[in-house]
């Protein structure tokens, strides 16, 4: 059943975000710490467990797959509701700082990527 897959996704999302909010509160910040990451981890672990128990039957995965296919449309909606005007009418400082850090970040990607955890 499709709804069971969707239910598992919803459970993982809520549990992960709740834990992220809790973690944020515990270390005293007004933000979620790693909620999406914990939710992703939980989803993968639970899905593996469900598969072992042979609970993953026809259409189960489609309840999850639909949302990963909706990803780009949601991102389009997200970019359409950004405060894009603010980015360009606050003068030069935000443009300089915001662009400079991205250039530096791009340059660092290949450097840091060369670090690999080796098992030897």
């Amino acid at each position, binding site marked *: 059943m499709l709804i069971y897959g969707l239910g598992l996704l919803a459970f993982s999302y809520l549990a992960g975000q709740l834990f992220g909010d809790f973690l944020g509160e515990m270390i005293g*910040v007004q933000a979620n710490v790693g909620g999406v990451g914990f939710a992703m*981890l939980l989803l993968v672990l639970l899905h593996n467990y469900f598969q072992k128990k042979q609970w993953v039957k026809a259409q189960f995965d489609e309840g999850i797959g639909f949302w*990963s296919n909706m*990803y780009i449309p949601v991102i389009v909606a997200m970019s*359409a509701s950004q*405060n894009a005007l603010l980015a360009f009418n606050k003068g030069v400082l935000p443009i300089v700082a915001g662009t400079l850090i991205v250039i530096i*970040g791009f340059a660092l990607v290949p450097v840091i990527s060369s670090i690999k955890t080796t098992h030897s």
Partner: protein
Amino acid sequence: MNIISFFEKNGMITSFLIIAIIMLIAEQISTRLLRKKIPGSAIAILLGLLLAYYGGMITGGEKGIADIPLFSGFKLVGGSMFRDFCIVSTALGVSFPVMIQAGKAGIISLILGLGVSFIVGICVGLAFGYHDAESLATIGAGTLTFIVGPVTGSALGASSDVIALSVATGVVKAIVVTVFTPLIASKIKLDNPHAAMVFGGLMGTTSGVAAGLAATDQKLVPYGALTATFYTGLGCLLCPSVFYLALKALM
């Protein structure tokens, strides 16, 4: 019958229709005009940003096109709940061995991403004539993400003007990452899960990383999101405390 309020009442469904039309237009531009040199998804995201700018100009609001009643459903569909839900759903495709192998590089990139962003923000702030530690730390925090900026600014008691600057800096960062990631990805070898995790940690802005990777290669999204999801939280932790105190000690 008021047709606008009809669409407003059915906001979420209306936005599905409008997004489908945007995707269709973007796909046509990509195949017919650009011979697939720029992927349709990248053009769709770009069109979204143009709409956001237009919406802000018309309404003067903060939510881009979503402030126009006809497009009000964008607030929900483009909000953080739908975004994070979709990101989590992509996790089924991730490979644990790859994630563990990239773990060390991911953590290093996260720490470096936080530190370097803060320092770059401070340097630019100094160049623009800010000299007090509170303003500089707020601008530095805004260079992390547009959430860390105002959180830090209000914690340190920075002026609302500086806080607005820090938000704008974070938004510029998200937009620049969105637009340029698909164009530069092959040059910085951003074509594998390992590099995507490093990229997420270095950039940190979830909106930018999510959109940039989506337009580059959808398979990379969960890896980038995995490190980026820790960035804003850690930034909110470090900027008003450790980073601010270090800055103050140096001045």
